[in-house]
């Protein structure tokens, strides 16, 4: 069973709440995914809109909320956002994401490391969204993260595991759970990440903007479970430069 900090998870599929066409579809998809850790963002309250409350739609006994710091540009803002989220949602868990560049949304490694150091001192369980940088992962581990969340491809791109070689190094070296976040666009990508040994994946866009988010959530659930099962069963080795018969080659016609 996956454990992050003091929490154990049956499901290795984490999900996001962005981009769904309606709150009802989001709720049904999240429940279909059986995800136990669900991300939310923070925003200024719209004082004119008293119906504006996402928590009402995702309040469920098995769902833990993971607030993110999306929208912040540096470590100082990230620490402030994390403290606001702790007050608002009564959780000391935070998905730390600092991506000042609005075009590619790539995470700033220096500000992320600085913010992580401070947030760990303040008692947060920090889950940092980062590039698939094995060196940064070790540095974050040294300052006390409870997991790392390297990207497979840019946020919302659905391109899959473009960073595979580096993800494999991270998985090989890491002493904390590795959660592949961003870029996973299809259940096959998620299954592949799990076969490589990722501890979990976080999926949002691929579910939310599919034609049928509820069915897609189920597909991801099955893919993640299958990928993990395959990893635990240990894949057969790849054979290079020749074939390897799976049937006997003894002749039987003469």
């Amino acid at each position, binding site marked *: 069973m996956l454990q992050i900090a003091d929490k154990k998870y049956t499901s290795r599929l984490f999900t996001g709440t*962005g981009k769904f066409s309606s709150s009802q579809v*989001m709720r049904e998809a999240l429940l279909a995914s059986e995800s136990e850790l669900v991300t939310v*963002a923070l925003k200024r309250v719209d004082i004119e809109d008293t119906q504006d409350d996402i928590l009402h739609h995702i309040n469920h006994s098995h769902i833990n909320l993971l607030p993110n710091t999306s929208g912040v540009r540096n470590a100082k803002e990230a620490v402030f956002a994390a403290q606001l989220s702790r007050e608002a949602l009564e959780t000391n868990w935070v998905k730390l994401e600092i991506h000042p560049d609005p075009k590619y949304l790539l995470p700033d490694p220096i500000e992320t490391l600085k913010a992580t150091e401070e947030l760990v001192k303040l008692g947060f369980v920090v889950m940092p969204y980062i590039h698939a940088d094995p060196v940064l992962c070790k540095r974050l581990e040294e300052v006390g993260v409870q997991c790392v969340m390297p990207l497979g491809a840019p946020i919302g791109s659905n391109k899959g595991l473009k960073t595979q070689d580096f993800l494999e190094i991270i998985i090989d070296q890491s002493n904390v759970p590795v959660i592949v976040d961003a870029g996973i666009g299809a259940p096959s990508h998620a299954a592949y990440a799990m076969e490589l040994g990722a501890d979990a994946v976080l999926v949002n866009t691929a579910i939310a903007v599919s034609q049928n988010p509820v069915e897609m959530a189920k597909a991801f659930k099955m893919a993640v479970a299958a990928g993990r099962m395959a990893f635990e069963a240990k894949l057969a080795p790849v054979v290079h430069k020749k074939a390897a018969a799976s049937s006997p080659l003894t002749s039987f016609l003469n």
Partner: protein
Amino acid sequence: MIHIKVNNTTHLFKPNVTLDEIIKGLDISVNGIAVAVNENIITKTEWHTKTLNESDEVLVIRATQGG
């Protein structure tokens, strides 16, 4: 009356208004919100004792959809 900005919109309140009175006065649902005054977070237990001054800036946030 004093001028207080709440999420960047200016509102008028009586002098020595408390944060609790502002939240209630603006009919903001308290479920799942966090509040900061001049970038200092004020915990829920302090809302009723925190008084505001002219030109103070209040930030009220809550969760929304995000990945």
